[in-house]
């Protein structure tokens, strides 16, 4: 948005921290296993079967990962639709997380698809099969990823405009000394990029609001459709979860997860990068979450009563226990957030947001995996390799976030600007991360 770029800053800290290398190692293991999958087939690395054709990749990476990536969506509703501009400083980090979340959901889909070379069919309207919920999800998610990239562009452009390209130059130097022998042309190139960025940015600022509106429409559509996906499995999904309200439940679920994640992310990065906690913004967000989750919980209970499944929920069998776990996690988290005083302490904010994210994510696991029973003889528990691919993908996500906040103005500008504090912050951040 015009005039808001000064709200954000780059984090001045080392990139190559110990955690960088740990995450890099996990990422590489994951990528190696992905290689194995492409050579030897999906069966060689997973425990998937004809009864459980979707496992942890779809359940976690896609169905749950995109909900966790809804921070950008949830905060955008608040900032641009509810017009709470005071949350604006949170939006870039939220959008960045969303970008990673969705990008990597897309990547895992490509790993999961058995015949990915045919996926160009998604771009041929003649091949579209209009009844397919998956088609709707796929198109929306692809469009939304593009929207996220455009929403994030201002950060990139302002970085291009204002930076001296020092790290880039250093990187090129380090990469290959001979590459930069022609210093002159490199400099004019840099100038050109800088002025191009300066030209594009104001224009983009004008159109951005329509992109942002699209960035709220698309997740509304595909998040509810992620619930619709399992409507068809009427005989396989346990009646605790199979309901006509799946689309609505998934939609509300992703919004309260989105806000909770924005809270968690802010607290964690404040802690990790030793920045002050944004308690005032966070307690504001935290005031909304319990209302959403209470609506969600009431729909869940009301629907169970309506379908006469309440006894199944309380029977304490395998399914009922997972249901109660999901229910209580969300309920307890919301109870904490209803308390004004607790809402103002980072510790309780963290605990309650974590409970709600866990409960909300467990709900999606229940629908996609735990409550899914294809019949006698079928069992599924993810294999180690399958899990490691997911771990690798998540590590890559965190790694990218960590590096990008140090290269681009993403995080909210710190309230205390004393150079002393900032230096100390940067030094500690280098150690902590």
């Amino acid at each position, binding site marked *: *948005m015009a*005039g808001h770029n000064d709200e954000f800053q780059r984090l001045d800290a080392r990139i190559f921290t110990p955690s960088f290398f740990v995450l890099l190692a996990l990422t590489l293991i994951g990528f190696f296993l992905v290689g194995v999958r492409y050579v*030897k*087939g999906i*069966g*060689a690395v997973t425990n*998937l*079967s*004809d009864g459980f*054709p979707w496992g942890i990749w779809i359940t976690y990476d896609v169905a749950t990962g995109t909900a966790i990536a809804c921070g950008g969506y949830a905060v955008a509703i*608040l900032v*641009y*639709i509810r*017009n*709470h*501009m*005071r949350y*604006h400083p949170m939006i870039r980090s939220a959008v960045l997380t969303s970008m990673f979340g969705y990008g990597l959901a897309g990547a895992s889909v490509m790993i999961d*698809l*058995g*015949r*990915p070379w*045919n*996926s160009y*069919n*998604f771009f041929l309207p003649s*091949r579209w*099969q209009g*009844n*397919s*919920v*998956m088609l709707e999800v796929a198109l929306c998610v692809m469009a939304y990823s593009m929207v996220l990239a455009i929403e994030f562009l201002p950060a990139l452009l302002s970085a291009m405009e204002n930076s001296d390209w020092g790290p880039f130059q250093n990187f090129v130097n380090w990469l290959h000394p001979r590459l930069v022998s022609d210093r002159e042309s490199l400099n004019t190139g840099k100038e050109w990029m800088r002025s191009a960025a300066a030209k594009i940015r104001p224009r983009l600022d004008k159109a951005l*609001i329509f992109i*942002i509106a*699209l960035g*709220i*429409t698309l997740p*509304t559509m595909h998040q*509810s*459709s992620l619930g*619709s*996906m399992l*409507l*068809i*499995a*009427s*005989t*396989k999904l346990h009646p605790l979860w199979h309901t006509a*309200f799946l*689309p*609505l439940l998934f*939609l*509300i679920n992703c*919004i309260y997860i989105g806000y909770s994640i924005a809270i968690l992310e802010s607290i964690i990065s404040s802690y990790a990068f030793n920045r002050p906690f944004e308690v005032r913004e966070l307690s*504001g967000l935290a005031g*909304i979450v319990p*209302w959403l989750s209470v609506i969600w919980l009431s729909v869940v209970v009301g629907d169970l009563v309506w379908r006469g499944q309440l006894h199944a929920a309380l029977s304490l069998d395998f399914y009922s226990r997972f249901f109660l776990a999901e229910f209580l996690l969300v309920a307890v988290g919301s109870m904490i957030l209803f308390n004004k005083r607790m809402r103002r302490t980072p510790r309780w904010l963290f605990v309650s947001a974590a409970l709600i994210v866990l409960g909300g994510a467990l709900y999606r696991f229940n629908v996609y995996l735990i409550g899914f029973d294809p*019949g*006698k003889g*079928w069992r599924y528990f993810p294999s180690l390799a399958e899990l490691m691919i997911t771990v690798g993908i998540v590590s890559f996500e965190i790694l990218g976030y960590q590096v990008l906040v140090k290269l681009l103005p993403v995080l909210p500008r710190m309230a205390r600007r004393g150079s002393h504090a900032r230096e100390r912050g940067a030094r500690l951040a280098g150690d902590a991360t």
Partner: protein
Amino acid sequence: MRRQSRRDFLKSVAVAGAGVLSCGAAAASSGPGKVNNEELGLLYDATRCVGCKACMASCKRVNAASGSLAYEHADWDKDELWDAPQDLSGSTRTVIKLYKESPTRWSYVQSSCMHCQKPACVSVCPVGAMTKDKTTGIVEYDKNACIGCRYCQVACSFTIPRFQWEKTIPQIVKCDLCKNTNLAQKGIPACAETCPAGALTFGKRKDLLADARQRLKESPDRYVNRIYGETEGGGTNHLYLAAYPFEKLGLPDLPPEAPAEFSEKIQHTIYKGFMAPVALYGTLCFVAVKNMKKQDTDEHPEKDAGKRRDE
């Protein structure tokens, strides 16, 4: 948050979810779809089947080119003499299983695609790789379109489509009534052509149903009084007669409404003519632009650390 703004917030969430909400009510009423009895199908009579598995063998021979070639050897078969698939798989489109209640009471049961009247697999496939032929009703798979998402496997109540998990270039495998092989050449699927015991009959659904009813009437003691597939899951073109309850033979107990009927109704209510998403987008644009304008005239009051703005 102040009370006022909280209520407004919930209101805007409600507006956003309104389209979704309305579907809950619409989904409650739902009748069975129309059944087309002119479509082609199979009638399997478990009381006639002698378990010779000739149907399995001829199915593999005839359809070798479409993914179901490989022979599956049992663990005990060190010399690899027999083709002994335990279930349907990426190499096997039809299989004869044995249900054994006691040494004297047992039954064979065939397993293959049911060729549903309203197939879930066709309903969910995003790229139209599963199709149902309008006149014959045969549900066919096209590996050149398939992206391998395996949604068809999740969707099928009978767990029929199988995936080639061990292959670098995998595909879905399921029965297509020999549409492009034996049926095209000889006018009959290989299994029905081969069966020496008359356990598998091929024909139009209405003829098969009439035949089945006749058999039920002639020898009521022989059968459970029910034609499986007549109404199950919206009706199937592959029909069953048996002497034991069908659930025991591994056939799921399904309501008469096709799962695809239910899910499509909800999805189509939400996306009817694409009106809800377009309306949502329009509203969002309107509100966002209005807020932006207000923002610009207000000279960034939100920067004021002490105060907050709220309408």
